[in-house]
């Protein structure tokens, strides 16, 4: 987000809670995401009125109604496109896109990849529950092969998208992943996303308690999470496991799970996370790790600097305006007249 920092020191979570009853199912992971965003926003030093939440259609996309900020619940799949216009017209706002795996990756896939490619300074939070919730349980572009749903009674045969992987292929300047059940981690990631200048793409693994309950259990469950989550920290070697006894090492171009101490493996042998690497090679490698062979990377995969689109647009305009001189009635008249005129008397 851009915009000056105003006197917003006194904002609290409460300021971001709207008067609308929250209408998600009991146990839905969306509640946690709402709560974390409401907690993080007051800390960012942005005046409340500068926030605008734009969403598409889906359970997740009801989000803006619950935020006491400016909000626009648009149409299915188009949040990124609407937000692109809003942010390009109004770079002073902090514009957040709330979308689902269906909204953002199925019908809205094109707008998403183009918004990321352009590096529009949007904070895109994709609630990935690997299902269409609002339409009552069809498979989505992130559903796993073999998934039985209302529209795939014999099991899905489609290879799913990996959202962070796809975002990286669009040259995303900020890519992260977090989990509905990990409030602290989510807050950290959201804060980082908010502070990034340029597009920030955040995938949140979100449980749909009604149509896809337990979809992420194998990595989020308390009992396995230490084994199954690889917490990324910039500049730190990649360790995981209950006591941090495991790690990731590279063998040529293939990452490998190793146990520290075994076969003489020391921390120095491990891959070190570098979210700021100019090339996305490491981030791409990380994006592909996951259950069952690897732990699933959680945290910021990539964060690099690049001029946001919306700022570039307005800098160019300002530059031209500066050199062309003030725009007044005379300039307008000149514009209307064009180059070649003649008089009739």
């Amino acid at each position, binding site marked *: 987000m851009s915009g000056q920092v105003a006197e917003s020191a006194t904002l609290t979570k409460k300021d971001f809670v709207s008067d609308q009853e929250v209408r998600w199912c009991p146990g839905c992971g969306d509640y946690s995401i709402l709560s974390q965003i409401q907690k993080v926003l007051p800390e960012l030093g942005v005046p409340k009125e500068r926030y605008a939440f734009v969403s598409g259609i889906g359970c997740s996309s009801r989000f803006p109604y619950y935020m006491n900020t400016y909000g626009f619940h648009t149409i299915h799949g188009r949040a990124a496109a*609407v*937000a692109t216009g809003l942010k390009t017209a109004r770079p002073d706002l902090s514009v957040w896109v709330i979308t689902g795996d269906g909204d953002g990756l199925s019908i809205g896939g094109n707008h998403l990849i183009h918004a990321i490619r352009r590096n529009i300074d949007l904070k895109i939070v994709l609630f990935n529950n690997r299902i269409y919730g609002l339409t009552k349980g069809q498979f989505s572009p992130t559903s796993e092969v073999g998934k039985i749903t209302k529209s795939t009674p014999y099991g899905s045969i489609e290879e799913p998208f990996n959202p962070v992987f796809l975002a990286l292929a669009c040259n995303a300047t900020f890519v992260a992943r977090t989990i509905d059940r990990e409030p602290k981690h989510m807050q950290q990631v959201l804060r980082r996303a908010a502070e990034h200048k340029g597009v920030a793409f955040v995938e949140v693994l979100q449980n749909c308690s009604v149509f896809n309950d337990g979809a992420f259990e194998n990595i989020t469950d308390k009992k396995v999470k230490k084994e199954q989550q690889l917490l990324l920290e910039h500049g730190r070697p990649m360790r995981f496991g209950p006591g941090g006894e495991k790690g990731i090492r590279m063998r040529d171009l293939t990452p490998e799970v190793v146990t520290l101490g075994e076969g003489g493996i020391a921390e120095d042998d491990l891959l070190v996370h570098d979210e700021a690497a100019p090339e996305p090679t490491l981030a791409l490698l990380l994006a592909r790790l996951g259950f069952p062979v690897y732990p699933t990377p959680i945290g910021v995969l990539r964060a690099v600097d690049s001029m946001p689109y919306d700022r570039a647009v307005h800098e160019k305009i300002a530059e031209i305006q500066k050199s062309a001189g003030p725009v007044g009635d005379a300039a307008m008249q000149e514009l209307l007249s064009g180059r070649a005129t*003649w008089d009739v008397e």
Partner: protein
Amino acid sequence: MTQTVQPLESVTIRFAGDSGDGMQLTGTQFTNASAIAGNDVATFPDYPAEIRAPAGTLAGVSGFQVNFGSVDIHTPGDELDALVAMNPAGLKANLDILKPNGVIVLNTAAFKAANVAKAGYTEDPRGDGSLDAFQVVEVDMNKLAAAAVSDMGLNSSVVGRTKNMLALGLMCWLYERPLEPTIDWITRKFASKGELAEANIRVLKAGHSYGETAEIFHSRFRVEPAKLSTGTYRSITGNQAVALGAVAASARSGRPLFLGSYPITPASDILHELAAHKRFGVVTFQAEDEIAGVCSSIGAAYGGSLAITTTSGPGMALKSEALGLAVKAELPLVIVNVQRGGPSTGLPTKTEQSDLFQAVLGRNGDTPIPVIAARSPSDCFDAMYEACGIALEYMMPVILLTDGYLANGAEPWLIPNFGELPQLATHVWKDADTFHQCKRDADTLARPWGLPGTPGMEHRIGGLETDIETGNVAYGGPNHQEMTDLRHERVARIARSYAPTEIDGPGRGGLLIVSWGSTYGSVRAAIESSRGDGIDVGHVHLRHLSPLPRDLGEILSGFDTVLVPEMNMGQLAFLLQATYPVRVKRLNRVEGRPFKRSEILAAIREHSGEER
């Protein structure tokens, strides 16, 4: 030597050649020269959908027709006084509209046997008698051009590309057009390529001199300046006028202009034009598709911009879902549809008026949107300005229909005084204490435009139905009825602000012609002719297609016969019959070109005998 000079009221000529021959540019320069000479003009650029269809073939012919006169010019002309044929295909494609005894200027260098065959001639038309009824003037343009620049050491393909200037110079001589505007233009265009500028200017002048010195024409023609209103003029195309209308409306409303658009023929030039106007704070966003084009504009409108999106038929279809959102969310937005031939990709470079149904009725749900249409290239400015005004005043999307003919066609435009353009009011709300998203303007029923960034006015909008009082999502039946009624009433009220409908001719009687959009010119021309013949008919030209003017029903009922000529299969006719207790006669022509005056004249003759 001296030639006679023959005075004429108006002349129609057409430049025709390969897509690569620069005919559009040549025609445009001739037009500008004519306008600057004080004539009224109307043009009809007519080119294939391919960039460069195979050289020498009929498919590759690109034409540019211009009608200029000392009288009011309403159409690009039914028939040609003169045809410039840069090759056999250009000749063949246009011979049928050349007047008997009309002039043909042809480039002999292009009449090699191979070219003749490519055009589909079995024999050289110069020898088969088919041109006997015309005045044929044969010029080896390539040779003359080469001679003009022989000392410059240019390579021959560059020289070949100047031959259109030879034709232009020659025609300027024949019709006494000034060369200066073209020379100025060449100088600007090739500013960084001095050699090219010089070559083109030399060839242009060579063409002019050739007319002067070679005894190829029996006489020159003079078309006196038209009696236009006094003032300063420029030549303008419909697409340019739309762009300028938008910039002017932005300046006069104080809302920054945002265009979200995806290129499509024949609308792309509006994007091109506006992309150049960053000085005026214009933001242009070339979106990934038409849906993103309209959605980004919706986002910008939400953020407080005067937002517009521009497209043509197929792109308009893609925008229909998002237009429903703009209606529901009550955001100001102007959608410009530069119509072209359909269905589907259809005839991308040809004109048509067949998107009227789509504009007025083509959305899911009960989703009324006001629709207005421009009637001439320069009128696109006024129509766009008005569309922006309605959008801002009523807080709703407005559709502006133009078409391929208006978009590319040019005419003289009496440049308005910017300072005299009406100020455009907006509903931007500043005072948080009194803000409520459902508090409507008593007159227009517009909601306040509460812009993100304003402290204390945080609120949510969206595409689900909302409560009429609170603005919260609401699924209740009676509320939905009220909201639906409200959306209709909001649009219906726009008609209160229309000026009384103008009737050209008698206010009641036998035949009334009702037209809309670009058929204006053809209808005007036909009516003027028919009056000359002593048949007086009424004419109403509609700017507002939805809602229709409140006084229209009464006007219609005052005539025995209502005739609706349209470049579609009867779309306005259908809307009129649905709205008023009237049966109308249709005159429908979908041939990818404007109506000929003669076609409308024939219909007038047919139907004016129908009084009961």
